[in-house]
C-alpha cells in the first residue's frame, strides 16, 4: 500500500501517471477526500470521466477498486450482504438430531454464513480499498438513507450480528449524472466535485495521451469540432470517451485532416442518435465545408 499523497500536486502527478489528466479542481478535491477520509460526490454530465477518476485514484493509491454499479431496484441484499441460505439449510440438516434449537440458531447466523456484497467487502477488507458507488442518482431514496451509516461512520449494522466496523477506511467515490436531486443528508456528508466537459486544451492533452500517434493538426481540429458539436442542442453530446474513440478511428483511417468528407464518414463515432446525426450533419458539416482550411 502506497503512502498518502502530501500535496494536491503530488496527487495530480500520480493521476497523470495513471493515465488520467486531472483538470480544474479534480486533484485538489480528490486530495482532500483522501486526506480527510470523506466520501467524494462527483457530479457531471455523462462521459466526462467520473468513473475513470475513481479507477485512476485506485491505481495511483495502489488499492483495490470495489465497484457497486447502481440501478433501480438494487436492494440491500445485493449491495450490502446476504445470508447464505443454502449453507444455513445444510448446517441445520447436518445436525438435525441432538442439537438444541438455541445452539443451531446462534450458529447459523455467524460470519461463516454471511455473503459479503460490495459495500460490506469494501469496509471489511484487510487493506484499504477505493469504493466506487456508480450512478447513485439511479437509486431510490431508501438506498441513499442506508448509505448514510456507511458514509459517515464506516460501519454496517447487521441485526443478527451487531455492528461491523470498518477494519480499514476506504476512499469512497460516488458518481451521479444529476438525473435526480440527491438528498441533503447525503450531500452533507460528502465533498462535492462538479466535473464538466473539459476545456479545449485539457481535452487536447487527454486525446494526445491516448493517441500519441495522431497528427497534431488533426488532434487540434478534432477537439475544436467536438467543442462545436457540444454547443448544439443534442440528446447526447459526445463524451470524452467518444472523442478518444474518434481520435483512434481517425488514426486508423490515416486521416491527415478533418474535412467535410472525413467528418461525414466518421461522425457516427461521436453522435449516437438519429435525430442528433441530422442536426450535426446540417450544422457542423456545413461549417467545415465553408471554413477554408487554415493550414
Amino acid at each position, binding site marked *: 500500500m502506497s503512502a498518502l499523497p502530501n500535496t494536491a500536486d503530488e496527487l495530480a502527478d500520480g493521476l497523470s501517471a495513471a493515465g488520467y489528466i486531472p483538470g480544474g479542481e479534480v486533484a485538489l*478535491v480528490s486530495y*482532500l477526500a483522501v486526506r480527510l477520509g*470523506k466520501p467524494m460526490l462527483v457530479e457531471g454530465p455523462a462521459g466526462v470521466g467520473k468513473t475513470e477518476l475513481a479507477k485512476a485514484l485506485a491505481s495511483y493509491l495502489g488499492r483495490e477498486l470495489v465497484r457497486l454499479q447502481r440501478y433501480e431496484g438494487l436492494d440491500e441484499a445485493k449491495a450490502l450482504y446476504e445470508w447464505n441460505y443454502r449453507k444455513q439449510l445444510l448446517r441445520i440438516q447436518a445436525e438435525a438430531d441432538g442439537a438444541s434449537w438455541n445452539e443451531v440458531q446462534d450458529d447459523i447466523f455467524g460470519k461463516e454464513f454471511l455473503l459479503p456484497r460490495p459495500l460490506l467487502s469494501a469496509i471489511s477488507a484487510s487493506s484499504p480499498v477505493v469504493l466506487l458507488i456508480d450512478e447513485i442518482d439511479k437509486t431510490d431514496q431508501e438506498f441513499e438513507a442506508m448509505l448514510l451509516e456507511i458514509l459517515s461512520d464506516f460501519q454496517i449494522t447487521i441485526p443478527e450480528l451487531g455492528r461491523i466496523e470498518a477494519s480499514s477506511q476506504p476512499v469512497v467515490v460516488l458518481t451521479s449524472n444529476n438525473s435526480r436531486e440527491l438528498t441533503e443528508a447525503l450531500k*452533507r456528508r460528502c465533498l462535492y466535485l*462538479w466535473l464538466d466537459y473539459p476545456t479545449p486544451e485539457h481535452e487536447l492533452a487527454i486525446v494526445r495521451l491516448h493517441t500519441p500517434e495522431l497528427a497534431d493538426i488533426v488532434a487540434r481540429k478534432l477537439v475544436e469540432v467536438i467543442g462545436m458539436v457540444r454547443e448544439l*442542442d443534442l440528446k447526447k453530446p459526445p463524451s470524452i470517451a467518444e472523442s478518444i474513440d474518434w481520435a483512434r478511428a481517425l488514426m486508423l483511417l490515416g486521416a491527415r485532416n478533418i474535412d467535410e468528407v472525413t467528418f461525414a464518414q466518421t461522425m457516427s463515432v461521436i453522435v449516437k442518435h438519429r435525430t442528433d446525426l441530422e442536426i450535426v450533419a446540417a450544422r457542423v458539416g456545413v461549417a467545415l465545408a465553408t471554413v477554408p482550411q487554415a493550414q
Partner: protein
Amino acid sequence: MNAPAPAAGIDARLLELGEELRAEGLAIGTSELLDAFAALAEVGWTEREAFAAALAATLAKSPEDRRVFDLVFERFFFRAVEAAALREGVREHDSERAGTGPRPHDDTQLDLGELRAQIAQALANFDEARMRDLARLAIAALARPDRSRSAVVGVDVQRIRRALGLRSDPQPELDGDDPRRGGLPRDALRRFEELLRAELERAQIERTATLGPARALSELDRALPSGPAADLAAVHRVVAQLRRRLATRGSETRGRHRHDRIDVRRTMRASLQTGGVPVVIKTRPRRPRRPELYVLCDVSTSVTSASVFFLSVLHALHNSFRQMRSFVFIERVSEVTDVFARERAFAAVSETIARDAGVADVSGYTDYGRVWSEFRALVEDDLDPRATVIVLGDARANGRDPRADQFAALAIRARRTLWLNPEPRLYWNYGDSVMAAYAPFCEVFECWTTRQLEDFVNSLAAGAGS
C-alpha cells in the same frame, strides 16, 4: 502538508462567510463549516484558487450553489480587503483620477482605438490578468471621474462596455483581423464586466471612504449560463414530480376503505398448502388511480415568449402521462395529442404545431369564449369526474367576453381545474386580462420559471387532503 495553523482571525472570517452564504440561500450546517476548516488545514493558503476550491468542495453542493458561492466568495473577500484598507487608511496613488494609469505604450495620450483593440484581444484570449489591467485603463479613459460618473455602478459598466464596442454577436462591418468581428466569447465578456464593476466599486469606496451595504445577488447573477436543452431537462424533472403528486393526491382512502380487503378466493387457495387452515391471508391489491389529464395550452401572440416554456411543459407531461390529451388554442381549439405521440423530439413537435395545428385562423387573438365551448364539445362525453384539467394561458381575452359561465361548467365536471398563468401576478386583471373572472372556478398559479413550476408542484402536495 505543513499548512499554517489557522490564524486567530480567520475562523471568525469563515463563519461570516458562511453566514453570508446562508443569507443567499445555501444550506450550510455546522458540519459543513467543520469540514471547511478541516479542508483548509490540508491546503496551502497562498494560492487563491486552491483556497476557494477547498471551501467550495465543502460548502457548495450543486452547480447552482457553486455559482452562488463563487459570487459571494468574490464579494466577501473584496469587501473584506476594502474594509481593511479603509481602516488602515491605505489609498491607491491617484493615477486613475488623472486619467493616466499603467500605460500599454510610452505615449502619454491614451489612444482609445488602441485600447479597444487591446481589450478585444485580451477578451478573445480570455487573459484574466490582462483583462484586469485593461479594466482599470478603460475606467481611467472612459469613466469621467469628476463630472458624470453616476452613482449606480451598473450603469457605468454598461456605458464603458458600449463605448468599447464589446459585443458577443458578430460585427461584420469591422476589419478582418479585429477579434470583435466574429463576436467575443460570452463568458469573457461577463468576466470583464465583473472586473469593471469591482474596479468601479473600489474607486467609489475610496472616493466616499465608506463601505456601503453588500449588494444581494440578483436572479440574473444566480442563473447558470445554460442553453434551451438544460431548461427542457429542468422542466422534465419537475413534471416527473408532478406526475407522482397527481397520482397519489386525492386517492388517500378514508373510512373502511382504509383497511385492506380480503381476497377470499386467493386466501382459500393459499390455505390448501396448510391443509385448509387459512394461515396466510391474501388481500386485494390496491391499485392507485391513474390520473386523467387534459391540458389546454395557449399559443397566441400575447404569450409568444412563454409558449416555448409551455410547449416544453406539455412535451414533458406527455413523456410522463399515458392517459393525457393535449390541446392548443388561439381562437379555436385543436387537439395535438397525436402530434406528441408521433414525435419525440421537442424541436419537431413545436415545428409541427406551428405549421399545421390549425388554430391561428384570422386574427391570431385568443377567443376564450369560443375556446371553452369548442373544448366542451370535444371532450364533454369523455370528461371524467376524476380528470384534471390544466390550462396554460395568460387569460387575456382581447376585449372579448370571457364566458366564465362556460368555464365554470367545465370546471364543475372535472375533479380539479388548475390554471398556470405565465404573467407575473402584478399584471393580472390589468388591461384585457380577465384572470379574476376565472379564478373562482380553478386554482391559479403564477408560472413563468421552472422554479415556479416546482412551487406549483409542491403546493399541489401541500393542498392534499382538502
